[in-house]
């Protein structure tokens, strides 16, 4: 049984670092892991110093870890090209132009980007069998939350469309009194078949998100991040996708007690404020803080990533639940 773990949060809080570290932790626990980046500004490549593409690719130096970067722009273009090819082979030349305009329009609507991303999401979920754990490094809060709330919304839409289509076909069939040929027939209607197929996909995605997925939010100990996280927790809760834990990243390290001077005083003050905020987070959020990670001087990559992974306590409890299955 594959389990899906999503890391979300405000931009720049270190989602990529945390999810990469979590990926390592999973690999360390003997799980075949796939790391999926959905952030259009991919940074997994920077963390592992390796280029990744649209297909899962093993990460060099780590056995059992693969990574994949989704490019929504490319997905939209592929979808459009595929449909255009299909159009020119099925439609009469006169209609192709008409329909082409409609097609271009549909691929420029604000939702197209998300729909493409969502499509790829579902595709990854469907083909996740070889992996024990799939870790999603999502794009900043807003778009991801909308994305995860999509299946339910889309299912309802498709339902309405199918209902309308069925009603019109039904009427056409009724209009064929005597032995007239009805203009459309219900049996083998390609439109209904296509919609049904879509609907099943959405249902699948909805089920996976509800049953096999865990959500973690990454945050920094600052006001903005706390507020955004609070909103995210609510939004996810509304979509019936409860958040399992919070990861507080970028905590300021405390100076040695004997150290004095401006830098040390500054750090001490910061540490005090952050401790207050951390306490507030633990008090005010219903969601537990599962890990706190200190900030690093350098970019997190290579061996530092392993250090960060060691600080993460997220994996431990989850493995238990996986192994007990």
């Amino acid at each position: 049984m594959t389990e899906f773990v999503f890391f979300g949060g405000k931009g720049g809080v270190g989602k990529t670092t945390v999810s990469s570290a979590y990926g390592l932790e999973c690999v360390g626990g003997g799980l075949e892991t796939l790391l999926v980046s959905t952030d259009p500004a991919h940074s997994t490549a920077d963390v592992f110093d390796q280029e990744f593409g649209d297909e899962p690719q093993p990460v060099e130096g780590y056995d059992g870890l693969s990574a994949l970067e989704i490019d929504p722009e490319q997905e939209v273009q592929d979808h459009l090209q595929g449909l255009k090819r299909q159009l020119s082979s099925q439609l009469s030349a006169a209609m192709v132009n008409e329909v082409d305009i409609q097609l271009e329009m549909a691929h420029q609507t604000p939702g197209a980007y998300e729909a493409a991303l969502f499509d790829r999401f579902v595709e990854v979920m469907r083909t996740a069998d070889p992996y024990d754990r799939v870790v999603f490094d999502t794009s900043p809060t807003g778009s991801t939350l909308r994305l995860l709330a999509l299946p339910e919304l889309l299912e309802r839409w498709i339902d309405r469309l199918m209902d309308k289509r069925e009603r019109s076909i039904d009427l056409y069939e009724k209009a064929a009194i005597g032995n007239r040929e009805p203009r459309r027939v219900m049996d083998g209607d390609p439109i209904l078949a296509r919609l049904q197929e879509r609907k099943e996909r959405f249902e699948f995605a909805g089920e996976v998100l509800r049953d096999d997925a865990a959500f973690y939010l990454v945050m920094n100990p600052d006001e903005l991040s706390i507020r955004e996280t609070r909103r995210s927790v609510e939004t996810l809760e509304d979509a019936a996708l409860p958040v399992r834990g919070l990861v507080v990243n970028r905590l300021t390290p405390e100076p040695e007690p004997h150290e004095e001077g401006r830098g040390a005083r500054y750090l001490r003050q910061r540490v005090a404020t952050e401790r207050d905020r951390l306490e507030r987070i633990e008090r005010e959020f219903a969601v537990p803080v599962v890990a706190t990670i200190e900030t690093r001087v350098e970019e997190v990559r290579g061996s530092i990533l392993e250090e960060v992974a060691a600080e993460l306590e997220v994996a431990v409890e989850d493995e238990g639940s996986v192994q007990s299955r």
Partner: protein
Amino acid sequence: MTLADRIATFRATLEEWVRGLYHGMISHPAYEKIEAEAEDAEDGFMLACFPDAFGIPSPVSYYTAELLPYLEDEYEAWERRLWDRQSVIERKGHQYHF
């Protein structure tokens, strides 16, 4: 002309009249009305599928675009009906035979 022939002619004429009457009074308005209703329902479907044709963004138009290759007839008829349709009254008026 024999009596049998005259009866046969009479019956043929009568049959034609009866069929015409039935067609005009019952079957024709019935299927025409239902078909118009079906077209209306189909227009509703098309509008729900492609609201961006009217500048209304839809969360599913990315997916409904996939239906276009199968919708040749519907799409053409839809466009034609939209051009024809001056008003709701004009469209609904079709169903009454004065």
